[in-house]
């Protein structure tokens, strides 16, 4: 019975997949090393952080909201977790502390939005500054070093040729997919984003649903932060700059509607990989940064046009 609501989604996902294949084919044609397995692993690795953030963003966008504060949430949990790690706290406690910070930040966002009745855009715009400021104040602007190698090796290893971050994101995606498609909370997210008042009258716990979405987004932001800290061996308070926009872009390319009520995990993953593959391929072709930016913008607009053309054809 999984095709219950998937019925009209695959059309859109097929479109995204087609775009991805097209981009891969183009790059493979002009750059012979693009399709080498090492490079493909590179693309997945480089897309994994954005994918992790974008999954949380997708859940929020589906619920009709937006989370601009993901980058600073990541930075704050990174520096707090890293300073605990550097002080000799057992790595798993440090990591859980980081995740707890992220989830708490998300809950604060969610409570202000769901119970305070404030607009998501404005709330997370505010907390974007606040969380960033806390991270800078906490560190005095300096990076936190001395990350223990045990912690680094957790995320640095490979399994079956795939880097740990890619595997983590795969697991996270699977869980998010189940959440969205198989649990009441997933239906609630779609319902709240699709028609909040109707959902409320049908007895959906609207506020709780929203808070859950923001908490998940915060948790995933801090998970991404852990991966970055482990990879770089340092936690910087300026980490996560512009993550929110890239995540929104991935979700939008994947078919999520900023009006709410529409979106999916598969599409968002494909969107993140499209963005990663673009950056990778254009660098291999030695295209300058400004033109890469241009290309990224065009891909987003193209995806929106495809969206418009396929709408109602579900």
């Amino acid at each position, binding site marked *: 019975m999984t095709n219950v609501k998937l019925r009209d989604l695959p059309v859109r996902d097929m479109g995204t997949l087609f775009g991805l294949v097209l981009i891969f084919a183009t790059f493979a044609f002009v750059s012979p090393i693009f399709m080498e397995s090492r490079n493909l692993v590179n693309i997945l690795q480089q897309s994994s952080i954005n994918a992790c953030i974008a999954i949380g963003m997708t859940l929020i966008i589906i619920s009709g909201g937006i989370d601009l504060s993901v980058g600073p949430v990541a930075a704050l949990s990174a520096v707090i977790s890293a300073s605990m790690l550097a002080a000799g706290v057992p790595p798993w406690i440090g990591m859980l502390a980081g995740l707890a910070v992220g989830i708490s930040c998300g809950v604060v966002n969610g409570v202000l939005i769901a119970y305070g009745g404030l607009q998501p855009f404005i709330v997370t715009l505010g907390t974007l500054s606040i969380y960033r400021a806390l991270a800078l104040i906490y560190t005095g602007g300096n*990076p936190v070093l001395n990350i223990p190698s045990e912690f680094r090796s957790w995320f640095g290893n490979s399994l079956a040729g795939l880097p740990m971050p890619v595997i983590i994101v795969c697991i996270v995606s699977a869980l998010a997919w189940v959440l969205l498609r198989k649990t009441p909370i997933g239906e609630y997210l779609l319902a709240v984003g699709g028609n909040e008042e109707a959902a409320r009258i049908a007895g959906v716990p609207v506020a709780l649903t929203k808070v859950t979405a923001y908490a998940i987004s915060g948790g995933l932001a801090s998970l991404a932060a852990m991966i970055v800290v482990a990879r770089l061996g340092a936690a910087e308070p300026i980490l996560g700059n512009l993550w929110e926009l890239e995540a929104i872009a991935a979700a939008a390319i994947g078919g999520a509607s900023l009006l709410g009520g529409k979106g999916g995990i598969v599409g968002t993953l494909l969107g993140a990989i499209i963005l990663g593959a673009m950056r990778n391929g254009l660098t291999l072709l030695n295209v300058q940064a400004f033109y890469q930016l241009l290309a990224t913008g065009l891909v987003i607009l193209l995806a929106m046009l495809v969206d418009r053309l396929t709408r109602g054809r579900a």
Partner: protein
Amino acid sequence: MQITKWTHVRRHSLAMAFALLGCVSLSSFAQTLKPLDSDREPDRIEWWQVSEKLGALPKAKPGVKVGAVAKTLTNEYWRLLGDGYKKAGDKAGVTVDLQAAQSEGDQLGQLAIAENMLSKGYSVLLVSPQSDANLQPAVDAAAKAKVPVVNVNDAVIPLAEHYIGNVQRDNGVRAARWFVQNKPAGGKIAVIEGMAGVYAAVQRTEGFKATLGKESTKFKVVASVPGNWDRQLSYDTATNILQQNPDLVGFYCNNDTMALGVVEAVKAAGKLAQVTVIGTDGIGDAYKSILAGELTGTIDSFPVLTGEVALDVSLRLLAGQKVPRVVATPQALITKQNYSRYKGDEAAQRKALIEDAKSGAK
């Protein structure tokens, strides 16, 4: 705050960290290098000594391709550094490809670019990292692929085998000394910082304040606020500072873009005679302003020259030459008075900088 003390013991704690890392022996770190302190590394050489000590540049093998990863191209400094790479590359007959992150602070984006360039198979990588840490995975991967990596300027990768450039902190030190020597009466000073938390901004500001405090008692830093590398924001900030402190004697700015904004604010306040403005980088517009008698001076780190030196060194590495770990490149505070000495033709500039270095002038 628990973390702030690390500012002062930064290098020290780094040493501890990597001693520890060495013991644990992470598989990816093949060699145990001491963490780099580009200021005090004993295995060093001045840029002008390179050809004196190592001889003429060996002819590059055919097919050598040099990859360069800059910080961002929205800042003239990094474009000029790239020009230096290209200039030296053309002279030596090798291809140079320059890539850059999309914005200042785009750490993961820059890492992705560096990794992608590695898969493309360049012979050597010249990198200017966004932060000490962000390119570390690419450096590890390069080591595995036996591609030499040269760290050019700004942030210092602790395990870098080769570093070319100046010291960010030294930039602030020079500005502070200029105030001490040229404004013996002292007075109120304001600092316009770069983006909060960005490495270069933190280091330059810290060097400036520490030196000013150490070498004179007559100065007081009344404001030290971020201008985010932005002209407009710096203009507004400077206007407010001047209103608050009408007797201010000088501004030190972490880059020239901000300094030019500050100059406009000073002009608008009618205090050009009273207030000194020192910028950083030595971009074209800054010199126009200096020659017009508005901006007092800028700490030029000679990006074109630095780029040429970096490319020269990377080709020597490829030819198998042993180059000291740090190649120091020059910095100089240039004002209207000494402009002609540094900004004449290239040969004259090199001559002047070599003279400076030999006389030990800082």
